[in-house]
């Protein structure tokens, strides 16, 4: 596994040593094999240690890891029969925010999510997961379709933010997000969201008004990027690590602030080291919550969602 970060160096070195041993020990079943097993165990422990004590700024790096699974990885890993549905019926089809019918195990769902790429070409095509108004409007169209067909909605959140471009402003980025927030509050079917990577501000929330909000353990969710916050409040993007600390953007912080409902634990070493295990855990978590939500009447569902978001925030009375 190629390493990207300084804090992963100790693990990288151990893995290199293991590889070497393995190469020299082909056929050997005795002491070297035992040594390898011992090293592998230590390596796993070290990984766990490192990943359990990441700083918020390191977590941001993991959340943006180029090998971190993206939506189309999850689509092939844990969903089946995905039928992508295109277009907002008004302007165009956004490749940064996609959706369609899919099956999660036996459960039929409307799957909607930000779609980052993993190489430059894919990322350019998908605008690095930064959606335009037509993306949010397509998402809303699909949510209404799901409501009509009585199929629950599952959203995957992974975006640096809504696209800050001239065309996006002209076509009403603000209105498109605002409309989704308003309409999702009323939607009479269960909605489960999971923040899998970057939960970038309004661009994330635009598909995130859900009955249950899950978050991968190394994902981040924030009102502004640490870089953006640092350049405004510290007047210098070099303070991004401080800003990441101050903003409280990790899954643990969000759980304690009652913004998310559950942390979905990634494998030791991060989601990028084991896509399949990450996907399986996500699948289990979503299905568990959908099962509960599907027992509620539409009226109860929307009432509870209203109460959930009414309770958000801390102030002095």
């Amino acid at each position, binding site marked *: 596994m190629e390493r990207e970060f300084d804090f992963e160096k100790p693990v990288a070195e151990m893995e290199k040593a293991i590889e070497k041993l393995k190469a020299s020990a082909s056929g050997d079943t005795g002491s070297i094999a035992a040594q390898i097993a011992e090293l592998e165990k230590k390596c796993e422990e070290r990984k766990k240690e490192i990943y359990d004590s990441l700083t918020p700024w390191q977590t941001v790096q993991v959340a943006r890891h180029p090998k971190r699974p993206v939506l189309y990885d999850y689509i092939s890993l844990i969903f089946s029969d995905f039928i992508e549905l295109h277009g907002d019926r008004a302007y165009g089809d956004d490749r940064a925010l996609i959706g369609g019918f899919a099956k999660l195990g036996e459960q039929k769902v409307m799957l909607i999510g930000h779609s980052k790429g993993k190489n430059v070409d894919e990322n350019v095509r998908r605008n690095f997961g930064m959606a335009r108004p037509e993306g949010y409007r397509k998402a809303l169209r699909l949510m209404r379709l799901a409501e009509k067909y009585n199929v629950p909605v599952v959203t995957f959140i992974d975006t640096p933010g*809504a*696209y*800050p*471009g*001239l065309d*996006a*402003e*002209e*076509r*009403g*980025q*603000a*209105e498109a*997000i*605002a*409309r989704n*927030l*308003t*309409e999702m*509050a*009323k939607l009479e079917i269960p909605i489960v969201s999971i923040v899998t990577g970057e939960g970038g*501000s*309004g661009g994330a*929330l*635009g598909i*995130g*008004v859900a009955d249950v909000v899950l978050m991968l353990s190394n994902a981040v*969710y*924030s*009102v*502004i990027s640490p870089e*953006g*916050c640092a350049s*405004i*409040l*510290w*007047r*210098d993007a070099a*303070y991004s690590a401080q*800003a990441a600390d*101050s*903003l*409280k*953007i990790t899954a643990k*912080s*969000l759980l304690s*602030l009652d*913004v998310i409902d559950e942390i979905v634990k990634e494998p030791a070493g991060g989601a990028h080291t084991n896509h399949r295990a990450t996907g399986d855990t996500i699948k289990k978590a979503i299905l568990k919550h959908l099962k509960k939500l599907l027992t509620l009447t539409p009226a109860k569902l929307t009432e509870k*969602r*209203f109460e959930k*978001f*009414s309770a*958000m*925030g*801390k*102030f*002095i*009375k």
Partner: protein
Amino acid sequence: MAWFKKRDDRDGKKKSQDDIWVKCQSCSAHVFKQDFINNQSVCPKCNWHGKLTAYERIGLTLDSGTFVEMFENIRPADPLQFVDGKGPYTEKVEAARAKTKLNESIVTGAGKLNGLDVAVGVMDFRFLGGSLGSGTGEKILQAANYAYDKNIPYILFSASGGARMHEGILSLMQMAKTCAGVARLDAKKIPFISILTDPTTGGVSASYAMVGDVNLAEPGALIGFAGRRVIEQTIKQKLPDNFQTAEFVREHGFIDKIVHRRDMKKILHTILSYYNR
């Protein structure tokens, strides 16, 4: 920011000058301060609309003596113990409270508009740039719930730079919270009129401000989602001069009508007079 510059260190002569004259931020004309105030803080030369305090706005909108303030004790907590390069959030809050005599960036309550019962929220840009904090969101929701319970229209004047970073993710969640409040009004078919004043940007434009039954705006108001500089850096081109003005946003279909301040009350009443339930 006050539309005329205050300077505490100025000499007595300059001070008395500033008490008599104001300089328009748009056409630079020097106008008698009293004329300016009598003209609802609109430049008599070029119609530039200066910012109003929440109470000034309420005075122009509701029938005299009918406003009853509600939820006025709600004020910011410091849920993140936020400290930035310039110090702790709590200090900024206390400074804003001392300066404005307000507890939050919005004043909420109920009153009469040409005899019609309405619930109102009016943001005040002087309080931390009108930013949307947890207290702001709570007051917007509570006022919406009041309108919901009493079956009366809800009128919301926005003036905000967006979400309040110092409250992190909780400020972002206020977008969902406030929208859930106005969504309920919609479901019960209760009117919700949004008025976007200078400025209405970021998370406020991307939540309650943009989803009125009718969206009104004041002339020349800055209205948009992303900041001008961020967009210019992203697309690497200069933006048109009228970019993100109320006129630009109306041109693109997201504002119903641009209304001069002196006509706002009349227009609000006229629109609400079509409500036939």
